[in-house]
């Protein structure tokens, strides 16, 4: 059986549209006015304004290598991050430190350390697995480049992003 939809009984005022149209125009004009006088603030104009200061502590941005307070690369080229990396974005070529080096007791260090940022999925497993706390996910998110080569972060770039890590573990400190 067909269902009869009850139509609302419109009053005389509603039937001539005009009051509704005018009240609608008042609403849009109010929005326009509030925008012009800057009372409404919705849009964040991206390159000029950034949300960076509001980024949470746990934000996972670009992975980066860090130096310790003595200026040494913390990485010992154990290659655990290379093995754990799900998209296989990390490539490490380990090398030995020469015997007269200040940090010769560490023995190994990365000769080359490349992270392909096209492959990286920002999962943070490298950070999690690192026994030396040498690789961290920073808050950089605008990783850009014109070629595929640009998008591979080499050791210098990673150290530049990473900067110096203060405190935390100092396993190879003389006193320990």
């Amino acid at each position, binding site marked *: 059986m067909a269902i009869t939809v009850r139509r609302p009984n419109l009053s005389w005022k509603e039937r001539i549209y005009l009051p509704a149209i005018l009240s609608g*125009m008042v*609403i*849009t004009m109010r*929005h*326009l006015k509030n*925008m*012009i006088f800057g009372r*409404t603030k*919705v849009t964040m*104009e991206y390159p000029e304004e950034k949300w960076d200061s509001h980024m949470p502590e746990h934000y996972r941005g670009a992975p980066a290598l860090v130096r310790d307070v003595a200026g040494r690369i913390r990485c010992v080229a154990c290659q655990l991050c290379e093995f754990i990396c799900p998209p296989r974005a990390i490539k490490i070529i380990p090398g030995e430190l020469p015997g007269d080096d200040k940090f010769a007791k560490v023995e190994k260090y990365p000769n080359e350390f490349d992270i392909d940022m096209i492959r990286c999925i920002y999962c943070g497993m490298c950070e999690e697995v690192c026994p030396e706390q040498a690789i961290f996910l920073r808050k950089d998110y605008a990783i850009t480049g014109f070629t595929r080569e640009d998008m591979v972060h080499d050791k210098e770039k990673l150290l530049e992003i990473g900067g110096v890590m203060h405190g935390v573990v100092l396993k190879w400190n003389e006193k320990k």
Partner: protein
Amino acid sequence: MNYFIILTSLMKILGVIFLIILPMVSYSVYAERRVSALIQDRLGPNRVGPAGLFQPVADAVKFLLKEDFTPAHVNTFYYWLAPCLAMVPAIATIAVVPFGSTLLGVPMVIADINVGVLYVFAIASLGVYGIVIAGWSSNSKYPFLGGVRSSSQMISYELSLGLAVIPIFLLVGQLRLTEIVRYQIEHGWMIAPFIGDWLNVQKWLLAIPMFVSFCVFTVAIFAETNRLPFDLPEAETELVGGYHTEYGSMKFALFFLGEYAAMITGSALIVTLFLGGWHLPIPSWNGGFHWTYITGDAEGWRGIAGGLFNIATFFGKVAMLLLVFIWVRWTLPRFRYDQLMRLGWVFFFEIALVNIFLAALMIAYFPA
């Protein structure tokens, strides 16, 4: 042949088209985008130049550099003809509109013909051919529906458009648009003839049919220019893009420009018929308070400044009306097709008819 008239006419044509109408068209597109954005709490285009003011230039360059694509299934000749037909009538209409008083003794109207408004209606209704031919030649269902809708909508609203201006001609007794402006300067603007003459009952009574005329005419202009809430020919949500679905690059841009040019000519008509044309009353205390106005008749630079001021006044009024067009567009939803037809044939047609009798009665029994 009078070379002076030919030369000045040519200069007026080039000046109006390239210095006023086309920049106004491109900046009304910009205004449309900015105002619509602000109404919706967005920002709109603000990247190109200060506050995005060079956006129209960027748009034009983009449209010119795009590939001019013609689909394989269209009727090529009419497909190419349609954008021109959409653009030309909109611009040709402006020829009879007086957009200023005089400049260096030259009247600021391109063609002051004695059938003024008839010419406007004759040319403006050609605008629908562009849309119908575009819909037909595209050989595709959505443009076709858009074209058909456009033609029936145009017929329904052109009636009330024509009838709405009859009270003015009853009053003025002329079709020449410059005479209508002159009448308004002497007797007060059509929309509010009582201003400055507050105690004149006859003018108050006359304002009633004039206001109705104004409303009907404005709504009919909205329908005529395919603006929301009457944009059924290009209803994006129903007909993809309507009549210009199959168009791209500069041909699409011509439709776009044609729509805005039609808006400008429509606003110019409303200004001329109801809002006093280029006339702007200025209070003066020279020997007691009275209203005066600026003309371009004075000698030297004062005359030039006055003439330019009148042109600026006219296009300022047009710009205000364009803002109203945009404001209405971003407020109201689209009418359903049967509502549109009902409104056109059952309401506006009758209102305009009754209004004519009302105006005739007023003029017969309360002569000025």
